[in-house]
């Protein structure tokens, strides 16, 4: 999947997350989270899984997480990526 434009998905509410995606030369992943100390490993694993599945190899992905569960991370990230892959 090719990232063509800058988009965002999600909210800043508790138990949700904001995902910001934009085109980049390589894959950049930045994660901020209210539960970074407890769950960084799981958040990273879920993000990588979604990027692999959608075959995204070049993109800047920035996540601001407010303690979202895995299914929410997957849904928000996939929405953002699919949105970013369409023409504006």
């Amino acid at each position, binding site marked *: 999947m090719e990232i063509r434009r800058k988009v965002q998905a999600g909210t800043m509410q508790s138990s949700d997350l904001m995902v910001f995606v934009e085109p980049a030369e390589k894959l950049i992943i930045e994660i901020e989270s209210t539960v970074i100390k407890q*769950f960084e490993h799981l958040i990273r694993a879920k993000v990588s899984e979604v990027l692999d599945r959608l075959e995204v190899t070049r993109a800047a992905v920035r996540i601001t997480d407010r303690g979202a569960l895995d299914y929410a991370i997957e849904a928000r990230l996939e929405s953002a990526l699919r949105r970013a892959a369409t023409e504006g």
Partner: protein
Amino acid sequence: MVRNSLGRLIPESFNGKNVIPFSDPFSLQPKGFRASRPLTRLNPGQKKLLPGLREAIQAAGLKDGMTISTHHHLRNGDALLAQVVREIDALGLRDIRIASSSIHPAHAEIIPFIEKGVISALECGVNGLIGELVSRGELSCPITVRTHGGRARALISGEIPVDVAFIAAPCCDDYGNMNGYYGPSACGSLGYAQVDAQHARTVVAVTDNLVPYPASPVSIPQTMIDYVVRIDTLGDPKKIVSTTTRITTDPVGLQIAKYAAQVIEAAGVLCDGFSFQTGSGGISLAVADNVRTLMRSAGIKGSFGCGGITGYFVDMLEEGLFETLFDVQCFDLKAVDSIGRNRHHLEISADMYANPFNAGAVVNRLDAVILGATEVDVDFNVNVNTESNGYLLHNTGGHSDTAAGARLAIIVAPSIRGRLPIVRDAVTTVTTPGETVDVIVTERGIAVNPRHQGLRGELLRRGLPVKDIRQLQEEIYHITGRPRPLEFEDEVVALIEYRDGSIIDVVRKVKK
């Protein structure tokens, strides 16, 4: 370092004092006598009114290394502590300890004075930024967190000798009679300050509402007040309410509340003479609402409601569902209004409320208490002091006191908060020992302490979703994932004192 009975590593001494490791909630015995105050004499014609705080500090003879106190009935609206600390600094005093009944986020104003060495230790728990900075190692100020009953015990036993108590007096005369019922800074009960008035070496009443003699009714009498000072403002009573004091509308919270009320009913305590305490959180109030409905429909007349009193309990008193309210602290302005008006809304001291070392505290007569938790663990231990980042952000309040005293101590909490599971292998910080916690209620299931097999059976018989605590934990972890434990340095920045003065846990500096 030594290990206490809960396996927590405790230093042998802290800030120059020897530490007693916690062993169990009930067996530590007090020794000696109640501490007292020096005798004094005031002859006819002598006056107590001084022009300002500075003069009062001087008259009280405050010196480097001494201890002061204030009370926190105005909670986040309190303006007195910061004014006192500024005057102490202006007089050039250093190394002063604060043994107030609590410190709130508004008191972040005193941080520069901690950095400057004016304030050198906190003999009381903290809410907010000071605890965070101390946890990060960015502010050097040893903290001893005490329960409300434990603080009363520490003052009464003389363990913490308070040299000068500054009592915010919302309605006060020039001879020191005071109450908290009336005036622009009315806060209701002065329950915590009553202990200071009896046990501090010198007691200063500070008021923004000086009334003609005598102030009436008298909550703290003239016989205990050495000096009276008038200042512009004690603070803002509108900031007493720090959390929502409305019944939750969140379906998760409502489900928890429904289960909790059913547990109270199943435990067989809901009959005439029922006594009850809840906090002011949205779920606690929803439990109270369910209990109120059960009491109404069964025609039950309760004996007393206790604690920090909310307008919700005032309604139950006025409706005749309770005979009496025991009030150590008003949690909202409706309670403040009631205490000056309702004859059976009684002001009680922190000693009477919760001190384990007297001839019997009110908490011992509680049938049920509803309490919150940041985390619980598989041994039913509860943490309310440290948050998910490991910072010391909350004071204990009456949590451990009421859990120990009540026949039925129920913890209510959502199973997941922002991905964090409520049930852990071991809580980050033990505030309240599992031995005193009877039931943990979440929307996903109810865990009963294995000490209460009879109650467990009754809940099952009534079709309630009882689960083994480990089973509940696994169900929650299945959704959240398994959290990594927080990492800490070895350095101890705060003690968590149990109500009897033994140390149940410590807070360590958080690893960067």
